[in-house]
């Protein structure tokens, strides 16, 4: 991939994700709550970012906005230079399909559906119909070590294996950004480390990884930590080259 991939900590000239006075306000009856309050933030291609903070700090809201699942109340969110606030619902859906892969705490696999079919799902919504969905999905599952379990349904797989299937699904459309919301929250410690090693390997190949977690140990895998409190970015720390695992 690009030069960035070999030096993940070097900030490139143009950010992949850029937040400018990003604000999201939820109105509940008479009260309004600023879930995000004028956040300014740049994330470069190839970064590995952990978002931390107590519940209600706005970290999930930020992840939803970057994931184009929601639009901001005010301010700008630029993904690859395009403001998502100005996109239509269909354009947002296409953006999620092409550029973003989601990984969830509860895996969110389709039940009684094989691993292969689960991984294929994003491709059924893809505009590019020329790629062979079956072989692309098979290749992704083999890459993450589940080549022997293509025909297994989620109930026949362990938690770690299910999360690997979910990661393969996130990767199948070749996105540039992986968004993971507490990806190890439902896994035991050892499996958590395996999953985090997988994310590290993907990051080394140049993928931008942004994960939300409240576990310090998990956050240590990232090269950059963003701490949120009451909708505001309170701390932005980068590891120096020496600290990178």
């Amino acid at each position, binding site marked *: 991939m690009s030069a960035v991939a070999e030096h993940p900590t070097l900030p490139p000239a143009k950010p992949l994700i850029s937040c400018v006075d990003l604000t999201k306000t939820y109105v509940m009856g008479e009260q309004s709550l600023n879930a995000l309050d004028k956040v300014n933030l740049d994330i470069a291609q190839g970064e590995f970012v952990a978002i931390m903070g107590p519940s209600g700090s706005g970290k999930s809201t930020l992840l*939803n906005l970057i*994931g184009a*699942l*929601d639009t901001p109340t005010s301010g700008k969110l630029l993904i690859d230079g395009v403001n998502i606030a100005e996109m239509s*619902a*269909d354009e947002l*859906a*296409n953006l*999620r*399909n*092409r550029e973003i892969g*989601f990984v*969830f705490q509860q895996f*969110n696999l*389709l039940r*009684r*559906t094989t691993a292969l079919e689960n991984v294929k*799902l*994003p491709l*059924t*919504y*893809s505009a590019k*119909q020329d790629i062979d969905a079956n072989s692309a999905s098979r290749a992704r599952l083999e890459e993450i070590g589940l080549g022997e379990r293509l025909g297994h349904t989620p109930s026949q797989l362990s938690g770690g294996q299910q999360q690997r299937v979910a990661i393969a*699904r996130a990767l199948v*459309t070749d996105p540039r950004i992986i968004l993971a919301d507490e990806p190890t929250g439902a896994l035991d410690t050892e499996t958590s480390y395996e999953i985090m090693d997988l994310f590290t390997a993907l990051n080394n190949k140049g993928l931008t990884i942004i994960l939300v977690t409240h576990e310090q140990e998990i956050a240590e895998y990232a090269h950059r930590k963003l701490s949120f409190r009451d909708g505001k970015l309170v701390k932005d720390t980068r590891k120096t080259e020496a600290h990178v695992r």
Partner: protein
Amino acid sequence: MTLLNCLRTAIIAIRLNAMRSILTTLGIIIGVASVIVMTAIGSGARKEIEDQISALGTNMLTLSPGSSRFRGRRSEAGTAKPLSEADMQAIQTQVPGVTLASGELRTTAPVVYGNQNWTTSVTGVHAEFPEVQDWDVADGRFFTPSEVRSGIKFAVLGNSVVKRLFGAVSAVGEQVRIRGVPFEVIGVMETRGQSGGWRDRDDIAFVPISTARSRLVSESGTTPNPVGSILVKVADSEQLAEAEQQISELLRARRRIGPGREDDFSVRNIAEIVKARRAAQQTLAWLLAATAAISLIVGGIGIMNIMLVSVTERTREIGLRMAVGARRRDILTQFLTESVVLCLIGGAIGLGVGIALTFVVAKLADWSVLISSETIAIAIGASASVGLIFGFLPARKAARLNPIDALRYE
């Protein structure tokens, strides 16, 4: 999302809840089965009427003597004074619009050829009979008017009689014996097939009416030259009602029936007889139509209900699909496809049940039924429409979900 993918997803979703899905489609099954039975009876009845009208002639009236009254006691039909050749001539000359007429004097007698013997309806007619009935001779010829007057021993046979007696041999020119009297076969009628009541109309033999009178039918009455019934052909179907009226008046005058007294004869319009028979079938068809409509609506509401349940159960799945790139219309299409497929499965089962029921009805009620490709198209169309109409609301609910809320749904 491609249609194929939509179909696959729909079938997987339906199979996950197979039992629930089948129970849900019960209303559709009953509805479609009713539609099938209804249209089968309806089109069967229509075909029967068309067949009978074409078989009996469109612009035809049948005159026959009614029941006689003796000291207030009514006897059975046909016991009144018979109609005669003179009545027929009077009608032909005095009633405008009447172009042709033929008498018909029926008896049942054995027809013998060689060692073959077949009992059939032997009918004495006039030379005009084929034209009145729109029924041509297939082989040989029919009687001429002078042959009918002379009382010659000629016979024209219906196709079924020919098959019974002659097999593959040509009948024209051969000799048959009817009630012991030798007749020469001069013609064979065209095949008419079965009438609606499964009566074989080709099982008949024609002889000149004068010959029938002198040789086959024992004359007991005082009426000279009697005819059993008279078939009248009217030039134009619009003149039919008027001709009917005038014939009635003429016959009342000739038979000296005073005003205020009932006719002792009947003038029947073939189309009307058939229509009367149809009315009963039509009533049942309407009843079934109502059942079908109600079942389809109730079935549709069942489908809507189960689809709403399905959307709620699968909220997280919908959220996930949106997260990986499904547009609103993809979700809408997915759930619409599912409800249409569900209804089509019900429709297919209903089609089978309907066809089976149709044959049961045909057997029990002795009605002619007709299952056409149209009927099947209606069944499929009706079930697909129910799926589209009642699936729309749940599908729209699914498509309008907010992806974040859907993903968080527990």
